[in-house]
């Protein structure tokens, strides 16, 4: 745990006083302190290309009255700097008066341990793994022309001081291990990327030579793509594989169910609460409480313990994801979804681990039922236009389906659909729910936060595939 007052002329008592004084006429707000140590070690083109370490320390001071948020942040933790921020907040809210809400729920549950993953493995043993990955892949096949592999790790310590002196803390470890391989055969180049990670030590993810599995998967994806044909263009049936393809749910549905867009009525879902937005059998939750997952949080960035929030239950829209501000303005409670990339950013309602739960059909049944369509196994990333509800995502591994059988692999194509209607097109839900490998980062309003997704295989009756073959 970081001691933020150790090397500063600012004592905890001073901080308490300034916070209480600044927030006394506000509805909500807090002082958020953050200390992050992070590292990244990258092997590329046969060499250790970079080895870097970063230490980031700072505070974000927030005051909210009504709908107005005043925020000021700095990386100088000092009496002077905090006072300057306080004046800045007061000047924005000077003509307003609120009543501070002291309520904040508490929980003793923790979803990861207080470890510092950076210090649990020596630099040399990290370098050794990266070199092994490089040699392993280059020896594997002479079509391997480029290998990039990396470790990224961080330990983020946060402390939240609320008006009245209430203090909430959390220490969050996070690591990621990545392999990217480029193959070249008959003048064609294709890449395959795979990674793993979460909130445990590096070695937890590397045991049993697991790095080899990651290499094999990256190599397999690249090999499949070397044989790929142009993708079809037009509307057709789409079978999605389990696990990571759930970023479809993240983009199509998840963002539209975040509290801020619904309070502001800019989401295509804002007037659909309690209504049927998905086929029967479709249940979607956003869960911050799964042990050691990339999207899990013991408390969110406002201090609220996270929970498992049911968003859609058997096709019916049940809840939005809320931070304290949007919850207050919508007369509901925070779902522990208030997150920020770091102290430089304001809190927004965000997803954690977004999951579609299993149904009872099999992937084989889905494929068999399709005359002409595609089977999408892995995706690169996605994006959504909240207002129109249109969303896209890019296939990195996909196949044609012809007459109920999986055919040739197809080139990376964008799939486009309509968020509010896509889940009504889900006609089969598989029994094979899987979590993603722990690699997702979600972007919103310029802030990236780690997230997870999960889903079983699903069959979507109608989606537009953006290939080149008519």
């Amino acid at each position: 745990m970081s001691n933020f007052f150790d090397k500063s002329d600012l004592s905890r008592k001073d901080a308490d006083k300034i916070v209480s004084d600044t927030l006394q006429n506000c509805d909500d707000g807090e002082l958020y302190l953050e200390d992050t140590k992070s590292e990244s070690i990258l092997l590329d083109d046969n060499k250790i290309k970079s080895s870097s370490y970063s230490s980031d320390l700072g505070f974000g001071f927030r005051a909210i009255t009504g709908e107005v948020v005043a925020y000021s942040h700095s990386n100088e933790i000092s009496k002077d700097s905090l006072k300057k921020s306080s004046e800045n907040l007061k000047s924005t809210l000077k003509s307003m008066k609120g009543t501070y809400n002291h309520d904040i729920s508490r929980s003793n549950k923790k979803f990861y341990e207080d470890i510092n993953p950076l210090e649990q493995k020596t630099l040399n043993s990290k370098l050794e793994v990266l070199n092994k990955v490089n040699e392993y892949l280059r020896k594997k096949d002479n079509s391997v022309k480029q290998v990039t592999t990396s470790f990224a790790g961080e330990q983020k310590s946060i402390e939240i001081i609320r008006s009245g002196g209430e203090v909430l803390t959390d220490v969050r470890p996070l690591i990621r291990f990545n392999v990217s391989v480029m193959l070249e055969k008959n003048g064609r180049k294709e890449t395959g990327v795979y990674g793993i990670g979460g909130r445990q030590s590096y070695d937890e993810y590397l045991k049993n030579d697991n790095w080899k599995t990651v290499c094999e998967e990256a190599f397999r994806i690249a090999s499949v793509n070397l044989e790929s044909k142009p993708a079809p263009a037009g509307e057709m049936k789409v079978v999605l594989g389990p696990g990571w393809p759930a970023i479809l749910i993240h983009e199509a549905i998840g963002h539209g169910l975040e509290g801020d867009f619904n309070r502001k009525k800019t989401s295509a879902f804002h007037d659909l609460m309690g209504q049927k937005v998905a086929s029967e059998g479709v249940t979607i939750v956003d869960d911050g409480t799964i042990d050691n997952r990339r999207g899990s949080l013991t408390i969110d960035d406002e201090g609220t313990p996270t929970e498992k929030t049911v968003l859609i239950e058997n096709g019916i829209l049940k809840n939005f994801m809320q931070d304290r501000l949007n919850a207050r303005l919508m007369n509901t409670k925070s779902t522990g979804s208030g997150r920020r990339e770091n102290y430089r950013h304001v809190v927004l309602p965000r997803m954690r681990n977004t999951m579609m739960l299993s149904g009872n059909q099999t992937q084989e049944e889905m494929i068999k039922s399709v005359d002409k369509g595609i089977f999408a196994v892995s995706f690169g990333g996605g994006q959504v236009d909240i207002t129109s509800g249109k969303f896209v995502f890019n296939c990195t591994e996909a196949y044609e389906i012809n007459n109920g059988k999986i055919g040739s692999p197809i080139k990376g194509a964008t799939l486009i659909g309509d968020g509010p209607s896509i889940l009504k097109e889900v006609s089969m839900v598989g029994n094979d729910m899987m979590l993603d490998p722990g690699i997702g980062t979600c972007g919103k309003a310029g802030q990236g936060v780690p997230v997870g997704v999960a889903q079983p295989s699903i069959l979507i009756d109608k989606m537009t595939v953006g290939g080149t073959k008519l």
Partner: protein
Amino acid sequence: MVKDQEYLRSKASYCLDLAKKLGATGSSVTVGHSISETVNFRNNTLDESNRSDGLAISIETYLGKKRSSISSSNLLDDNIKTLIEKCFETTKNTPEDEFNSLPDKELLAKEIKNLNLYDETHFDNEKKIEYLKELESVASSEEKIVNTESSFTENKSNFILANSDGFCNGYKSSSFSASCVTVAKDENSMERDYEFTSKRHLSDIKGAKELGEKASEQTIRKLSPNKIGSEKISIIFDKRIAKGMLGAFAGAISSNAIARGTSFLKDKINEQIFSETINVIDKPDMNKGVGSQIFDSEGVKSDTLNLIQNGILKNYLVDTYNGKKLNLKSNGRCGGTTNLYFDNGKISFEDLLKTNSKHIYVTETIGHGSNLVTGDYSVGATGFLIENGEFKFPVNEITIAGNFKDMFKNITLASDLDFEYSVNSPTMMIEGMTVAGK
């Protein structure tokens, strides 16, 4: 006030001295300070104020051909000392890389030309509020506009870059930006669009009224869109999308992608990759330029580069490390392009719309569908159907796809270039792409 050069210099030289004392054979350090103030409005009322005050330092140490780096936002001397010791310890344990080195001394920038990148005017929050009030009252005046969000940001920054070869330079810069996002609604749909302005000097930004009017107009015309059938059709890219093609092009000619062999433009120097009428220029020394710089992030002087001349690829974007790998001299592009643009074409915007009886005019794309290894391109798109030079109806939920290698050869540019951003393009037509819809 942003910290002055003297303060930043003293921090930088403290780092260089310390690295030397520890035994580093070379080192380089960047110290920067930036203050920005943002005010956000929503539906004609104040929504958020945000003040950001950030110091940052990054240090690289060398031991012969070994290198590693650290960065921090904590500039207290004893924290810096701990970090440099850690950095040098890591350097010692990192394997050698023959291409690691500080930039060649003779390539370093010698003089600091004044490009007018700093405007000391302070536009205080009260004035930002006034600007946004006017903007939003204009933006929300049409009945169909149901939501407006707008923002004004003022940023001032200063930095110093110093290395153990004696380079020590930096300068102040500023930016003033305003944006407006509007949501319109009718019985068939809800749509969002935006308008944006960003300049080095306050007096150059677009007026509040103009910004609000444009955002509102652009949003309303998207209402009640149709989906269209799948076909091969010529596509016209609005300027704000056309400039994205340059982004992909710049990524593909970065010396990093070339040296690693992961670009579809590898080994294409002196080859025809665009049609003969196309010229692409990267010009770092534009007066008040949003992307202007005097030297790159290694201190290497940046000169104007003709990247594409009559359709032929003339230069890659080269930094020191990848330059050594490729046997090329750095051309001051560590950190990428500066003010990058397509030169004007010969045909007016109006005539471009009439070149075919039917076009799709694309105003927005979504998704990350550019593959720089293969050149494959596939993204979601929103826009309009144009028939005989006239806008017919809005179109959405379509995708457009092709391969950059073919797309680049089929570009026709209009003559309506202006320098709004750091990357700029005239309106662009590309023939032979596939649209997927119904």
